[in-house]
C-alpha cells in the first residue's frame, strides 16, 4: 500500500462560546477524526448539516486552526505551520468552495481570478501567466477567450468551473472539494462531477470530497467516511459502505435514497428526533439518542472506530449491523439532510 498523502490523527476543532469575556463551554464541531487519503484517491465525507464536514475541510487547508490533533501532508506536519512555512505546501493543497456565487471576486476578471494563486506565490509559468490561465480555462471546459470577462457574466456551473481552474492553477496534489456541486442544478452537477473525475484521472489528483448527496458520493468516491456530530462513525471502501453498512446511522442514511423501483417509503428507516447540540453531545456513542439499537452500554462506553471483519471497513458501534443491502442509487440523489425529515 502506498504511503498516504494526507494523514489526519485526532483532528479536533472546538469553537469557544463566550458570554462577554467568560468562556462558556465550546461547540465541539469536530471531535477526534482519524483518516488517511492516498495519492490519487477520493475520500468522500458525508453526513448531515452541522456534523463538522465543512469545518474539517477548512482545517485541512489551514483556513481554520485545529484545536488539537495533527494533519500530516506529504510526510510533513502542517497542523501549526506558519504562512511562510506553508507556502510550498499551499501549491499542493487547494480547496474548491460550495457557493460559486460567493467564491469569485465580483470585481476581478476571470483571468485575474484564475491567475491569483500564481501571482500570490510569485510563479511565472513558461509562456506567461496569461497563457497558463487560458490553458486552465480550456482544461475545465471554458472558452479561453472568456479571459477578460467578469464572474457575473457566467452561470453557476461555469463559475464553479472557474473556481476549479483557480484551484488547479498551482498543480495541487490534493483538492478539498467542499460540496462543490450542491449549489448547482442536477444536470450541471453531473457535468461538474464528470469534469472532476476526468481531472482526477488526467492529473492524478487526490480529493477530499465533502458532500451530503449520497448518490454523488457513490459516483465519485473511492472511499467514504460517514460523519455524525463531529465524529466518523464509519469509514471504508465505497462498495462496503453502500452494500454492507455496519453502522446503524449509515443504514439510516442509505435507506433515505429514493428507490425508483419501489413506490412509497419502503424499507426506509426513520430517525426520531433531531441531532443533539454539539455544545453538549451525548455521552458514550453520540448516535445513541436516535438509534433503535441503543442499550445501556452505548451511554457509558464510547465505541471505538475499529474493523469488524479484519478488512478496511471501520465502524464505531457496539452492535454493528450485518448483512448486505442491495440497491441502486437512482438518478435522484437523496441528501443526508432528508434523513431527519
Amino acid at each position: 500500500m502506498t504511503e498516504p498523502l494526507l494523514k489526519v490523527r485526532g483532528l479536533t476543532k472546538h469553537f469557544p462560546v463566550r458570554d462577554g469575556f467568560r468562556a462558556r463551554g465550546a461547540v465541539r464541531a469536530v471531535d477526534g477524526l482519524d483518516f488517511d487519503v492516498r495519492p490519487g484517491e477520493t475520500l468522500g465525507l458525508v453526513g448531515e448539516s452541522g456534523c463538522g464536514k465543512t469545518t474539517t475541510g477548512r482545517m485541512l487547508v489551514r483556513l481554520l486552526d485545529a484545536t488539537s490533533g495533527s494533519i500530516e501532508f506529504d510526510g510533513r506536519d502542517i497542523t501549526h505551520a506558519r504562512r511562510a512555512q506553508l507556502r510550498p505546501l499551499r501549491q499542493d493543497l487547494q480547496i474548491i468552495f460550495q457557493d460559486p456565487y460567493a467564491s469569485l471576486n465580483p470585481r476581478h476578471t476571470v483571468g485575474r481570478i484564475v491567475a491569483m494563486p500564481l501571482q500570490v506565490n510569485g510563479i511565472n509559468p513558461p509562456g506567461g501567466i496569461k497563457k497558463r490561465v487560458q490553458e486552465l480555462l480550456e482544461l475545465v471546459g471554458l472558452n479561453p477567450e472568456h479571459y477578460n470577462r467578469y464572474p457575473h457574466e457566467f452561470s453557476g456551473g461555469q463559475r464553479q468551473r472557474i473556481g476549479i481552474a483557480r484551484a488547479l492553477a498551482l498543480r495541487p496534489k490534493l483538492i478539498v472539494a467542499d460540496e462543490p456541486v450542491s449549489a448547482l442544478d442536477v444536470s450541471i452537477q453531473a457535468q461538474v462531477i464528470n469534469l472532476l473525475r476526468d481531472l482526477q484521472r488526467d492529473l492524478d489528483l487526490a480529493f477530499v470530497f465533502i458532500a451530503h448527496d449520497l448518490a454523488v458520493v457513490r459516483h465519485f468516491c473511492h472511499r467514504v467516511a460517514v460523519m455524525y456530530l463531529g465524529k466518523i462513525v464509519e469509514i471504508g471502501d465505497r462498495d462496503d459502505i453502500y452494500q454492507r453498512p455496519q453502522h446503524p446511522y449509515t443504514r439510516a442514511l442509505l435507506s433515505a435514497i429514493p428507490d425508483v423501483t419501489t413506490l412509497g417509503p419502503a424499507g426506509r428507516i426513520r430517525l426520531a428526533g433531531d441531532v443533539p447540540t454539539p455544545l453538549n453531545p451525548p455521552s458514550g456513542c453520540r448516535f445513541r439518542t436516535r438509534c433503535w439499537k441503543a442499550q445501556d452500554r452505548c451511554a457509558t462506553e464510547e465505541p471505538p472506530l475499529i474493523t469488524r471483519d479484519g478488512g478496511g471497513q471501520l465502524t464505531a458501534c457496539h452492535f454493528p449491523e450485518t448483512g448486505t443491502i442491495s440497491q441502486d442509487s437512482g438518478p435522484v440523489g437523496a441528501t443526508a439532510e432528508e434523513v431527519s425529515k
Partner: protein
Amino acid sequence: MSDMSHPPSLTAPGDPAAPDLAVETESPPVGGRREIVGRSPNQLAWLRLKRDRTARTSALTLVVAALVALCAPLFGWLTGMDPTDKFVDRLNDFGMPIGYAGGISSEHWLGLEPGSGRDIMLQLVYGLRTSLFIALASALLASVIGVAVGVIAGWARGWLDSVVNWLVDLTLAFPFLIFALAVIPILQDRFYTEREAPPPAFRVALIIATFGLFSWTYTARLVRGQVISLREREFVEAARAAGAGTGHILFRQLLPNIWAPILVTVSLNVPQFIAIEAALAFVNIGVTEPTPDLGRMIYNSIGYVASDPWYTLFPGLTIFLLVLAFNLFGDALRDSLDPRSTR
C-alpha cells in the same frame, strides 16, 4: 429619477446572485475572431450613470460650479476688480446700493453689498471657491481617516474593534456645533493673541480639521461593516488558501469591493459640509474676513433682507443649487453603483 431610458434588466455590479442579462444582450455578436471583452461592474455602473438624466444635469451643474470656482481669479482679471474692492461711490447716504435690484448694472452684474459696497459677483465667485475647497478637503480628510480606521477595526476585530466602536459612539455623542464653538476659538487663541489677526488660511484649516475629526465616524462604520461582511466571503478564503498575505487580501480583494459605497458617502458628505460650513458663519466661527465665503455673505445679508433682498438671494441660491446638485448626484451615483437599492 425613474428615467424611462433606464432598462430594468440591469443588475447589480457587485451582485453575484443575479445573472446579468444586460451584457449578454448588449455585447456585440461574437463572430469571427473578435476578442471577447466583458464589461466590468464599474463599466456597467458608468453606463447606468450616463443614462441617468438627473445625474447628467447635476454633474453638469457641479462641473460649472467647480470651473467657476477654479477660475475665480480670471473673473477678477476680466472685470478688473478685486473681491475686496469697495465701491462706496455707488452707495447712497444710507449705505444702500444705488439703482434697481441691489445695484445691478453693467459693471456690477449681481449688484453691490449694502454697507461695504463690494461687488457681489466677485464675492460670490471667490466665496464659491472657499466653500467648495473646505467641503471637498473635509470630505477627503474624513474619508481617509474613516477608511483607515474602518479597515483596521473590521480586519483586526477583537479588542481593537471594540475600542474603535467606543470611539465612534463617543464622537457621535458630541454635539457638533457646540464642540466647534468651543474648539475653534480656543485653538485660535492658543496660537494667536487677540491683537494679531490669524491668517485666513489658519481659520480655513481649523474648520477642515474640525469637520474631518467629526465626520470620519460614518465612513468608518460603513467600511468596518463592509470589511467584516466581505472578509468571510469565499473569494477571500480562496485567496488565503492560495497563500495570499494580508496586504493582497486588503488591497486586491477587499478594497475593490468597498470603494463604491465610500464614493457615495463622499459625494453625500460634501453637500452636508457646504451647508454646515455656511451655518458656522451664523455662530461667528466660520471663515473670517477678508476671505470671501458664501455662508458669511448670507449671514451679513440677513440685516438687509427687508431693504435689499437681492443680497440674500444670490449666495442663498448658489448654496441651494450646489447642495441640491451634490445630493442628486450622490443619489444617482448610488443608484448606478447598486441598482437594487432603487425603490
